[in-house]
């Protein structure tokens, strides 16, 4: 049975909450919906950013995804290295 969009969203959020490191690559979410094409999963992850459930985080060259509450703000803190 293919997963519904809501189930995939929930699985992605769960993964972003529980992963050992706060920042995840898009590929880390592929396993959340093994039957879906990577580009569909990318679209769902980007929608979650629009909803505020995830945020983009740049390592400088690669763009990653994170739960906003797991990222310390770069500005005014020691920042994320």
């Amino acid at each position, binding site marked *: 049975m293919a997963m519904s969009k809501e189930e995939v969203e929930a699985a992605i959020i769960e993964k972003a909450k529980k992963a050992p490191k706060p920042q995840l690559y898009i590929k880390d979410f592929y396993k959340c919906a093994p039957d879906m094409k*990577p580009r569909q999963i*990318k679209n769902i992850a980007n929608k979650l950013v629009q909803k505020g459930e995830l945020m*983009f985080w740049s*390592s*400088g*060259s690669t*763009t990653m995804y994170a739960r906003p509450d797991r990222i310390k703000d770069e500005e005014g803190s020691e920042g994320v290295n």
Partner: protein
Amino acid sequence: MAKHDTPMLDELEKGPWPSFVTDLKRQAETHPECWDILGQLELSYEDKITHWKHGGIVGVFGYGGGIVGRYSDVPGRFPGVEHFHTIRVAQPSGMYYSTENLRALMDLWDKYGSGMTNMHGSTGDMILLGTRTENLEPLFWDLTHDLKQDLGGSGSNLRTPSCCLGESRCEWSCYDTQDICYALTMHYQDEIHRPAFPYKFKFKFSGCANDCVAAIARSDFAVIGTWKDDIQIDQAAVKEYVAGNYSVNGGSHKDGDWGPFSLKKEVIDLCPTQCMWMEGEELKIDNSECNRCMHCINVMPRALRPGKEKGATICMGAKAPILDGAQFATMIIPFIEVSKENEYENIIDVIERIWDWWMEVGKNRERVGETMQRVGLPTFLSIMEVEPIPQHIREPRSNPYVFWKEEEVPGGFERDIVAFRKRHAA
């Protein structure tokens, strides 16, 4: 912001060449944060380590790219560069600007940023260097509403596509580079503005093998104009070149002391495939051997022109050295039609085939050229559904192993691995 002592940087103002140190000092008169760039750079020279931090911020609201966050790790000493973000602004196709537009851009950047620019970055965009986080949204509003311009790509996005000026000025262009560049920029807005891939992906469009945007060296997907039929020869013009009546190379080398033009030395002997010769006063070309390198056409533009059946070659997988070394793109599709009529559907098909595969198989931070190397060219060609041809390889037999699939052999063959292993235990 105070001036800093910068004895080491000051050395870079000596000598006859332009100096970024002089430029920064001049800029600091109206944008004092530029003193802090100089101060922090001098400190980096002393400490032999960078004092820039990066990471975090990627864009404005709704965008996941276009802004490259930069912060000082010594903001107490250099408050002017506490935040010093880079903004990528999509360049117009072929980099045509009106002076009015350039002035408006510079006014915008004087208002919200350091006034420093890099025209253009190696992806092709205009690079606006140095602003604070709180300026990003107002700048983006003015850029999009007043100037009707947009941010470019960064991070794991499709990067801002770029092209040579093509048919707008160049008689050699084998397709309308500006049109396809614009069309695909609009088609892939989501991929440009939000991360889409394991790592960056670049398209570049050159109208011919002169490759004025260096697509073959800088892009994962290089579309380079070429032709199928014969080079067009005007034998009367060939004679004029030989007689010295026409200026060689369009006159671009006329100031050098090259001596009289020698068709043999400068054209025939330099043809990389050795497919040209003279028969009496006629120049002959074996077009089946010509690899459309453009050399002879560059030297004698009035005598030789590209053929009439035009299209493009697609090369894939160029990259700069990050994980592995730098590499040029590999020729994958020798000829493809490039046509506005079908809205570039056939090219979009190729792009999406490579994306679907790379997103699945590519590792994090692996450029598609590295994934191609990892699986090998034969596997990659079969994924792209491209028939291998001799031109795909540089020389024969660097790999002696040829594996045939059953459907590739007339009559096929049957192979029962279980029965085989019964006779030959592994």
